[in-house]
């Protein structure tokens, strides 16, 4: 087989898997998560039971390597959409997005190459003032819109890392440049994210996020929450993401279990 045939075949396998799940799913009761582990280890079951004391719903993001970016974007945009009585959330989000354009230019990205992704993301954000939850979900389930948003988020992360090399280059593998790291692990669609990308995205968007690590560690019954904070004072409660090795989904915390969530 030639390289091209191998690549086509790999893509076909991915597509088949992907079509089983929407890019972003309806939210479901946390009981659904418990069901996944009903025949699993006690460690998982105990952790989920503990988690359900403070959280009541979750929303799955497709496991296509973009789940972190898509989950983060959806959770953030949904928060802004539901807080129609708090216009400052929307203003801050639009401002962060508009500033990202200058950041990308400062990181030497060609306007031509990123403008379409940027405009789709900004337009979706601007639409939040009149979107219903169903319309937001439909936008994130639309390949073109959803992937443009993911792509813009990836480029924001890459641009942040490239313009803050002095802070992040020490974490790279020996001999790897930040440009190489970003093109290989950040900018390419489908590449999974690691902690450095979470930190960068938090800083760029000024949105804090807490990641609930659900692991099979037998020694603890509590889910470990890891906070990621922006440099500025957070202006809203953190987004909550559920992490299981290799995958991110969205969690809904009870205290701001908002009305009208699909």
């Amino acid at each position, binding site marked *: 087989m*030639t*390289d*091209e045939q191998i*690549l086509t075949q790999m893509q076909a396998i991915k597509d088949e898997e992907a079509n089983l799940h929407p890019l972003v799913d309806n939210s479901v009761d946390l009981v659904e998560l418990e069901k996944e582990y009903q025949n699993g280890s006690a460690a998982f079951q105990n952790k989920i039971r503990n988690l359900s004391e403070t959280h009541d719903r979750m929303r799955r993001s497709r496991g296509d390597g973009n789940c972190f970016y898509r989950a983060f974007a959806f959770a953030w945009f949904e928060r802004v959409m539901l807080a129609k009585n708090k216009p400052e959330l929307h203003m801050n989000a639009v401002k962060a997005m508009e500033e990202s354009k200058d950041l990308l230019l400062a990181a030497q*990205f*060609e306007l*031509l*190459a*990123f*403008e*379409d*992704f940027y405009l789709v993301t900004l337009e979706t954000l601007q639409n939040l003032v009149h979107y219903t939850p169903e319309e937001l979900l439909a936008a994130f389930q639309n*390949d*073109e819109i959803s*992937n*443009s948003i993911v*792509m813009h988020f990836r*480029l924001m992360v*890459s641009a942040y890392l490239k313009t803050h090399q002095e802070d992040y280059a020490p974490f790279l593998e020996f001999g790897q440049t930040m440009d190489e790291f970003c*093109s*290989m692990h950040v*900018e*390419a*669609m489908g590449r999974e994210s690691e902690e450095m990308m979470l930190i960068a995205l938090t800083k760029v968007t000024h949105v804090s996020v807490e990641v609930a690590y659900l692991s099979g560690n037998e020694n603890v019954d509590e889910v470990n929450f890891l906070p990621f904070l922006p440099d500025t004072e957070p202006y809203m409660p953190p987004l909550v993401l559920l992490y299981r090795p290799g995958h991110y989904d969205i969690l809904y915390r009870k205290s701001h279990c908002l009305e009208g969530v699909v």
Partner: protein
Amino acid sequence: MSSAVHRRMLKEYLAIQKNSATRPHLELLEPIQEDDLLHWQAILLGTADSAYEGGRFRLDIVIPNNYPIHPPAIRFTTKICHPNVHFKTGEICLDILKSEWTPSWTLESVCVAISSLLTNPEPSSPLNCDAANLLRCGDMAGYNSLVKMYTALYAMDDEEQ
């Protein structure tokens, strides 16, 4: 048909026309027919002082509907002797056209990358083993004369293209 890809290709088309003076090794980069922005052609010029000097190498470029999330399919239609180009099919082995593609590339920057592949071959991932083996043995004289011969044979006669 996706309108996003057409919008993007139109932007690239206009930018390429504006920049034409700034890329010496790219003689041409344009849609084959004006009404089809998803099928392009390019002509790369062999760099002076390289074994490809004097050659004009034609590329066929097919833009998928989900470009630029997915890479364009690019192959040489002019026969070329190069370790990373399949001699019969013109398939190009270049990481950015495959696994390392990122949407921050444009057609123009990709063509520049292919052009620089000509003078910076990567013999460890060959599609043309004969050319790659000469390089790996360090037989530069043999390699250069082989490349020159094929360049003269296939890439210098306009009628042939």
